């Protein structure tokens, strides 16, 4: 019988439409400097963006492998046409690569191969996770809205004891995906002629209510949290619940330093308060949130001391 893998950090795929060179250099730096175990690479949000990173993908992949990172290739979350499906088939053709399925169709195509179930596939419970594991999933990245109580209940079921479980612990949370492009709409454009305006906002575009309160963020066809999720203080409880992988979402802030903080808390070599204060400096003018894990509204910040 396999045991749960040792705790480690992962870096989710870049959800934003970064300039191709910026994208490449970001991962070169991650390869060279970041203490991260697994790096997910690839376009998840919009099929139209994919061609931009393709010229750099092989080089980035190689550099990360050389730096001893596990590399998992992420795939589209919303697949709507036969063409997009064909593209997925071509993408996963190489049997030596490991993929993250972000739609059940991709999971189906990857059956019998080792693969990761990404957070865009609904895996809420042991029944589903066990079923997916039997079809080749070795890791499941869980939905962001699960509370610690739910994660603990999940960790206690026999069905998941051999599976690596991942939780999103840093960054804007992807909350919804649509056929409609909100970045294009915000600029009075149609999705088909979007001019890639989503590229103007390397961390997504915050939207506000009519009362000028920050509300959500948009990233092309994706809607995200306006706050950045941060589960620094919750890492010990997550480990105790049986979570072994902790996903950081890439942002334009110093991700190498973000990884240092999370790693230090995982290793218990820094006080949580100090790590939180330093994270606050790194992210700058952005509110942090951890409500989901505490069974509350995802946008809320719950003080650990209050529990």
């Amino acid at each position, binding site marked *: 019988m396999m045991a749960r893998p040792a705790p480690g950090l992962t870096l989710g795929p870049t959800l934003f439409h970064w300039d191709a060179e910026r994208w490449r250099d970001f991962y070169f730096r991650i390869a060279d400097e970041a203490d991260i175990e697994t790096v997910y690479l690839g376009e998840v949000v919009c099929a139209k963006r994919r061609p931009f990173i393709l010229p750099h993908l092989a080089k980035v992949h190689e550099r990360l492998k050389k730096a001893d990172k596990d590399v998992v290739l992420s795939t589209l*979350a*919303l*697949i*709507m*046409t*036969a063409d*997009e*499906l064909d593209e997925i088939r071509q993408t996963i053709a190489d049997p030596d690569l490991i993929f993250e399925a972000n*739609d*059940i*169709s991709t999971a*189906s195509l990857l059956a019998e191969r080792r693969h990761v179930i990404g957070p865009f596939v*609904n*895996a*809420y*419970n*042991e*029944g*589903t996770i*066990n*079923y*997916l594991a039997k079809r080749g999933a070795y890791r499941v990245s869980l*939905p962001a*809205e*699960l509370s610690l109580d*739910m*994660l603990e*209940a*999940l960790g*206690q079921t026999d069905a998941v004891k051999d599976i690596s479980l991942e939780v999103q612990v840093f960054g804007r*949370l992807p*909350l*919804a*995906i*649509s*056929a*409609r492009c*909100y970045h294009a*709409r*915000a600029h009075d454009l*149609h*999705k*088909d002629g979007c001019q890639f305006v989503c590229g103007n906002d390397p961390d997504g*575009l915050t*939207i*506000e*209510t*009519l*009362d*000028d309160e920050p*509300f*959500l963020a*948009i990233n092309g066809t994706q*809607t995200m*949290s306006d706050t950045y999720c941060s589960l620094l203080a919750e890492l010990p409880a997550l480990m105790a619940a049986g979570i072994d992988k902790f996903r950081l979402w890439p942002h334009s802030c110093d991700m190498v330093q973000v990884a240092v903080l999370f790693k230090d808390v995982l290793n218990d070599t820094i006080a949580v308060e100090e790590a939180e204060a330093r994270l606050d400096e790194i992210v700058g003018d952005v509110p942090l949130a951890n409500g*989901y894990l505490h*069974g509350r*509204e*995802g*946008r809320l910040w719950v003080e650990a001391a209050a529990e």
Partner: protein
Amino acid sequence: MAVTGARAKSKAIAGDLELICPAGTPAALRAAVDAGAEAVYLGFRDETNARNFPGLNFSPEELATGLEYAHARNCMVFVAINTFPRAGAPEAWHRAIDCAADLGVDAVILADIGVLDYAARQHPDLRLHLSVQASASNAEAIRFYHEEFGVRRVVLPRVLTVEDIAELNSRIPVETEVFAFGGMCPMAEGRCLLSSYVTGKSPNITGVCSPASHVRYEERGSELVSRLGDFTINIFQQSDAAGYPTLCKGRFVADGRASYLFEAPTSLNVLPLLPELMAAGVSALKIEGRQRGRAYTAQVVAAFRAAIDACRRGESIPEMPQLADVTEGQRETSGAYRRAWR
């Protein structure tokens, strides 16, 4: 395979559109049946279905009575068990499936893979439909649910154009059901956490979106402000048609400009598209609105009954001005079925 009398009869006309209607209460069920529904769909009064609203839905006894009423009038009953069980506690979902199967419903509408697996193993004769909450938007996803669990029909997510649907139908071995009228999600259903981010209650776990418990209406001078949780979702002038503060149907500010960024408070209405949807190989039309009153159910079902019957006779679709009264924001859209929507 167990096929009820109602089902066998209703499929008499090949390539026809079946009319699937919402029933939030037994009274609405009777209204839908009487107005000409070929099937009604409903949920149990708990967290196992995606319209877990106060005062709504069916007890097992009410379902039994409803089944009797519907089957006596050649109408099918589908039961939606389409939320995602909490880890470690799938019993309520399993019980719901057992109960529906024992009472002899015509199909259950499911979303969660674990629940589908349970239903397929425990009740091999139970007809399975895939809920829109499963977000199966392409041929491979649909094939997965068909081959793994024997799903016979899939409710398509509201992200596809009519052309996409026609193409899809040529590649899959199962029936498709599409949304025809009512509230519409601009997001891929079942993959949206907006409600829990703002209110802590989600469609997938709790079975609610933008729940009434978090809704407040406030007056500010001559304006009506609709709020969800701590956020203003919309502000209406005295003369504006109002809307419920569903959080994706408010006005928000992007780059300094206020607009209905995600979707306006509007109702989907596919009446003008009926011939196209028929040609695209769609098997069934679904009316949204288990949370709406039985007057809504009766009105919308009767209108669609008349329209489908007109289509059957090869006549043009009659105007249905009465539908304007029950549409949200008193506006209509053909939604994602037209590419321009994107």
